[in-house]
């Protein structure tokens, strides 16, 4: 029978073969990491240096800076008369790769418009922020905005409803957020 398995021969030098040398080298590396980071932590705790010992962002209290071109928060746009632009054509729901948009269409109160979404849900935990919904929309009714989504919570269903998406019950208008974040994250 033909021998199918090819043995992988790695040439280890004598230092690798003794094993202890390599172990000690590895221990030295981790030890150095510990010592350097500990030193930085101490300096930071004593307020001598602003630099921290770890790269961690303590998320709910501390947000990492976001690039000014970041688009990660869905918004439903409105017409000049305040009505929703969306006509519940289901393009976005169809194209969404994560199936996180759910629309309940209904008859529009406006006689000139046929349909509008009675309910519009976006499941923020499933969304991958690909932006395909915004691209697919024929009416520019859904957009991805610069606001950072607040997806930290104690429940596992972070679902944005229609009012939230239209910015009706947002705590902060997105323009304010944009102006604040535009300048300091530009250099990245």
């Amino acid at each position, binding site marked *: 029978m033909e021998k199918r398995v090819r043995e992988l021969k790695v040439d280890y030098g004598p230092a690798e073969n003794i094993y202890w040398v390599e172990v000690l080298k590895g221990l030295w590396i981790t030890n150095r990491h510990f010592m350097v*980071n500990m030193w930085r932590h101490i300096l930071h705790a004593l307020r001598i240096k602003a630099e921290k*010992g770890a790269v961690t962002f303590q998320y709910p209290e501390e947000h990492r800076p976001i690039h000014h071109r970041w688009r990660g928060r869905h918004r439903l746009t409105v017409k000049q008369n305040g009505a929703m632009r969306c006509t519940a054509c289901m393009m976005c729901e169809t194209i969404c790769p994560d199936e996180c948009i759910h629309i309940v269409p209904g008859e529009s109160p406006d006689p000139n418009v046929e349909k509008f979404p009675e309910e519009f849900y976006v499941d923020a935990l499933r969304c991958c922020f690909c932006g395909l919904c915004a691209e697919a929309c024929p009416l520019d009714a859904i957009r991805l905005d610069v606001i950072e989504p607040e997806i930290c919570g104690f429940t596992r269903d972070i679902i944005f409803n229609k009012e939230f998406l239209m910015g009706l019950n947002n705590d902060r208008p997105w323009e304010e957020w944009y102006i604040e974040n535009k300048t300091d994250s530009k250099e990245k």
Partner: protein
Amino acid sequence: MDTFFLIESVVKIFTMIAAVMGLATILTWVERKQSAVMQDRIGANRADIFGIRIIGLFQPFADAIKMITKEDYIPPFGNKVLHMIAPAIAYIPVMLLFAVIPMGPPLEIGGRIVNTQIANIDIGLLFIFAFGGIAVYGAVIGGWASNNKYALIAAIRTSAQMISYEVCLGLSLIGAIMIYGTVDLSQMIAEQSGHWFGWIPRWGIFIQPLGALLFIPAAIAENKRIPFDLPEAESEIIGYYTEYSGLKGGLFMMTEFIEMVLISALFSVIFLGGWNVPWLEYNGFNFPWGGTWTLNIWVVKGMQFGAYFLKVAVLIYFFTLVRWTLPRFRYDQVMRLGWRYLFPLALINLLITGIAVVLFA
């Protein structure tokens, strides 16, 4: 048996248990934090009492509450009685070993010499080997009584590994026993006081370097920690306490940390001179270049306690470092390392030591 002896023993027992359990509890925190700092992370820092966090030191309490309130599941079809007592069988022998581990230098209180060992018996090290051997039963019975094939296989792995490495552990220490001529641990430390040529402290590690080098892997293997953690190996090959939940599983985990304290104490007693500080004698520092720094006897004793604790702490740091650095061995590698490298090396060490003892003693 007089009252003084009784009070002394009770005080020693309580101090020892408090020290060991406290240290083991803190070790769960140390392990998390040390690994976090090594890996540029922050580590557990969220557990708080009334908003006070003190760098996560409350985490062990949170762990304890979690373990107590967790469901304690006893697998059906297994042997319920053995399943119940297996963690105790693993835990009690390890705790018993601390009876012969000294806590510090002997003290003189009211004209009496008070040994800081709980039981000052001559067979110290043999006692440790004897009860350390029993500890394997807890793992094996625990794995067997859970009626889980993976746990059973892990238990068999455990017994093979622990019995193999017990041989290496014993042989690596026999060289030291031959040189000190005693198995009593406080006697061993007394043998290690003083200096060679007035400079080098007479610590075991300088006279038994190979023994010390062999003791470390054998001790880690006995302790069942990475890189020898095949018995547990939670992540992929299932370990022997898979079927344990709540406090029983916690007891197995606790045993591991207590064993870490144990091997650190043992290593510092046998190879690092216990509480001996270089050039520190009962009257203070006597430097080899002629100077003396006279100190009160209680200051000297305090320094010796501190030195012993420092040695144990550094060793614990080292063992945690090893645990977070090395990847796990494969089963055949463990066996090969144990029987084909450590065992012959220990025999060679024994031979050399024997010749040296005959020639120079």
